[in-house]
């Protein structure tokens, strides 16, 4: 059943293309229906699937002569991310209700992107996973280049090239693993059980990990992220920060760490106090957390604040993965979900609720507009989303960050302290943005009363996202009960032996 999330999205994308010219309203509704259908399927599967263990959906030979299969399956981790994709897909459409130029093309690319993202999360054949992973690049490029704003063509191209270089690194690693294992299978499960020699894993692991981590915004390969987010139209930023960056993090866990767990082990020598790839990447993750937060602190453009905060929060995910203990990795998966929801919401507020109405994103220009009074819904939502993003208890961000910090405390106590600094700065930049954009001294309120009010689709989208974050924050067991069994499955045995 879950496989239909992919098919429905692709089918929707194709149908939209075939619509006659000018059918804007039909295109919107059709896109919303398609996304809703995908979400329904994802939700049903999530609710029915109580154990979180790996379940094959379909497995048929695809290119028999090379041992490549069309293998779709899902475990708890996939399920969480599928659910996230469903939620972001719906809300993204709600927040792009106002798109009037080339609407059907917009939603067609949008659904193509969503379908491929579902595909990545469901693929258990590396070749298939890679195919979906690469398809993502193309609609992403056009969504930004055609409907974007500030330096859109530059941002789109930068993003496309970074993604392509990342996936090229992954491709080298995947082909090498395939050949090394005897070129018989591409199944993640089989390859995870294959004993790749240590010297092979030592170079294959960093290659594949960095390849995926580029898309996850690992410092110093993150520079595409703020530029891309700022250039993208609202819905594309939501997808980009909400799900596309998660593809990178998911790939790090599912492919790099699962296939080459020995690559995480010690090298046998020290370079500047670093003794393994694990040390290197956790250090980069922490630098990303602190650096992202510090840069966000000094931004003048509202969207750049959120863009850099994304880099910072993605650092938590990578740090969580590198802790190699159950609580850290579970935290990382919850953070993937939580950041997807919250970054989506923040971008929606900045891009749709604020920018589309005021036509500026300069914090100093927004201040005098008295947005708190003119569009109070946006201010209220930003306060909630900001609190969630800071990691206040009761929201999903708190659970995720807490778990990652506990994990990090076991693995790297000193780094955990540095992360604390990042969290503090996080509070400051959200506070600063909130104050400057919404609660500054009003200049002349009368001129701004013409801003059109927050529409129903926007309210609905915001409520869905906030509601999800609170639900996870109050009862994280919703996700944990499927994540934990997944991490205990045989697929992650190599990782477990390696450390936790």
């Amino acid at each position, binding site marked *: 059943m879950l496989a239909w999330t992919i098919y429905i999205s692709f089918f929707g994308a194709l149908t939209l293309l075939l619509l006659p010219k000018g059918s804007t309203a039909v295109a919107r509704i059709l896109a919303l229906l398609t996304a809703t259908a995908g979400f329904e399927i994802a939700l049903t599967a999530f609710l029915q699937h109580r154990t979180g263990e790996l379940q094959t959906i379909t497995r048929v030979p695809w290119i028999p002569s090379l041992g490549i299969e069309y293998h779709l399956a899902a475990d708890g981790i996939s399920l969480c991310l599928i659910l996230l994709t469903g939620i972001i897909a719906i809300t993204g459409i709600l927040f792009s209700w106002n798109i009037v130029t080339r609407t059907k093309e917009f939603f067609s690319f949008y659904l193509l992107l969503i379908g491929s993202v579902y595909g990545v999360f469901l693929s258990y054949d590396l070749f298939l996973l890679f195919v979906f992973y690469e398809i993502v690049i193309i609609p992403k490029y056009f969504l930004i280049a055609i409907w974007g704003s500030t330096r859109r063509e530059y941002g789109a191209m930068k993003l*496309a090239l970074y993604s392509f270089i990342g996936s090229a*690194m992954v491709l*080298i690693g995947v082909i090498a693993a395939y050949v090394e294992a005897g070129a018989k299978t591409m199944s993640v499960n089989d390859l995870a059980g294959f004993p790749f020699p240590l010297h092979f894993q030592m170079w294959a692991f960093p290659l594949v990990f960095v390849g995926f981590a580029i898309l996850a915004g690992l410092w110093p390969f993150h520079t595409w992220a703020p530029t891309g987010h700022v250039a993208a139209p609202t819905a594309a930023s939501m997808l980009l920060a909400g799900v596309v960056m998660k593809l990178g993090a998911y790939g790090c866990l599912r492919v790099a760490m699962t296939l080459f767990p020995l690559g995480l082990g010690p090298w046998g020598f020290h370079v500047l106090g670093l003794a393994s790839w694990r040390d290197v990447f956790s250090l980069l993750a922490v630098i990303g957390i602190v650096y992202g937060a510090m840069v966000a602190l000094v931004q003048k453009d509202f969207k750049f604040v959120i863009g850099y905060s994304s880099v910072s929060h993605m650092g938590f995910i990578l740090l969580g993965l590198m802790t190699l203990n159950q609580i850290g990795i579970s935290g990382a998966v919850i953070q993937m979900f939580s950041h997807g929801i919250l970054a989506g919401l923040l971008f929606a507020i900045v891009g749709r609720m604020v920018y589309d109405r005021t036509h500026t994103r300069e914090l100093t220009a927004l201040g005098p507009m008295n947005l708190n009074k003119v569009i109070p819904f946006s201010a209220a939502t930003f306060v909630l989303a900001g609190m969630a993003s800071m990691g206040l208890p009761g929201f999903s961000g708190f659970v995720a960050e807490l778990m990652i910090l506990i994990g990090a405390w076991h693995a790297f106590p000193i780094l955990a302290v540095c992360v604390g600094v990042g969290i503090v700065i996080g509070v400051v930049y959200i506070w600063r943005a909130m104050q400057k954009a919404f609660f500054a001294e009003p200049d002349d309120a009368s001129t701004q009363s013409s801003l059109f009010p927050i529409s129903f689709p926007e309210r609905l989208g915001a409520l869905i996202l906030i509601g999800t974050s609170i639900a996870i924050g109050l009862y994280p067991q919703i996700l944990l009960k499927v994540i934990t069994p997944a991490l205990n499955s045989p697929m992650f045995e190599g990782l477990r032996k390696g450390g936790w």
Partner: protein
Amino acid sequence: MISYSQLLQLVMPEVIIAITALIVLAADLLLLRNHPTRLRFSVAAGLASIGCTGAILRLLLSSEQTNVLDGMLLTNPIVHFVQVALLVFTIITLLLSVDSTFTEHIGEFVLLILLATTGMLFLVGSQNILIIFISLELLSLSLYILTAFDKRSPQSSEAALKYFLFGGMSTAFLLFGFSLLYGLSNSTNLSQIAATIHAPFLPPLLIIAIGTTIIGFGFKVSAFPFHFWAPDVYQSAPIPAVAFISSASKVASFFIFFQVMTVGMAGSEGSAAWRHFAGGWVSGLAVIAALSMLFGNLVAIVQSSMRRLLAYSAIAHAGYMLLAIVSHTQWSLAALLYYVVTYGLATLGTIAVVGVVEKQTDSDHLSCFEGLSRRAPTLSLCLFIFLLSLSGIPPLAGFFGKFFLFSSTLAATHESDGLLWLIVIAIATSAVSLYYYLQVLKRVYVANPPSEADDIRVPVLTQAVVVLLAGTVVLLGCAPHLLLQWILEAIHIAGL
């Protein structure tokens, strides 16, 4: 002993094409001289396509494996496969040329295409350097004339002259190399040559023979630094000629290049593995491959003419395909054939689209493609598919070609990281290629059409062929085994 009737049976496809060529010429000269160009082209292309289809049927129905006169004439499944591919490309070229208006000499034009095809059919069906040389010349001479066929355009003649001069020089190199091989081995048969020249170290004469042979073929496949003719020919030759040169002749040249190197020079490979570099043709080709990929892709970035962009990307693709010869295994031959066939399909489609746009706007400048998605949506979608396939984005045929090529290259050496350096260059330059292909697509989809531009009129036949090509590229990307299975089985049966 073999009788003449048996021989005729064996070369039936070539005979069919040659006779068709004569029929086309006669029909055009005697019956259709005073009719409108479109009709004459339709009849000529129609007749020629029927001939090609007949030859294809003949090839598909015969399953014999023969080796006549020490490899002078070979028939086996893999040769048949390549010949079928060549004929299919010829048919597509002919169909695309129906709406052309660049010449009055239609019979001669189609005749030359068919003669070139005959040359290619002989070329791929032989393991004898004499036959190889003669058929290669038949092919090359036809291509030189095809390039110059637009008599109204001085650039066309200039490009042809350049092509001819460089071609003549490379032919001289090739002939020199072949004569040295013959002198060293006293045989014109590839496997016998290999058996004789096999030596623990390479004598100077053999090194020269290998070098000059590589130069000769390097020119045919437009690899760096023997690529000088390509940008000019691509830019100035008539569209059908460009289509033919970039698809069919590529398939034939690469296949025979592979055969000459792997069969004729077995034993003098050397090695291109990282830290195990050893003299031989493999190491030489590895360097040429790497330079072609780098040069072609980097220079393509700065092109403002679509045809020149395609020419430089062809140089880059030649580099990728050379990887298969460098790794010279059964698997890599299959990868090469899959790659060159799917590359041919995508390139043919792209050139057809360029032809349509050029006809309307009188230029192939990239700016002419601005807003094409709104002026000709179907055509643009097809161009989208072709260019993404060329840059290797799944699920299109080009991606699978690259994947297969790279994995066969990695599997070729015992140490899995032996040829990794070449793969790294290949993949890195693929990223570069995505950049310039996206630059074109950006103009097609993102930019707005010029305000005075009308919709683009696409001839029905061209549109049908382009859509068919795009469909095939998607199909072969989603279900690569349809073609791959055929190739692998053919290689297996032929015992290569």
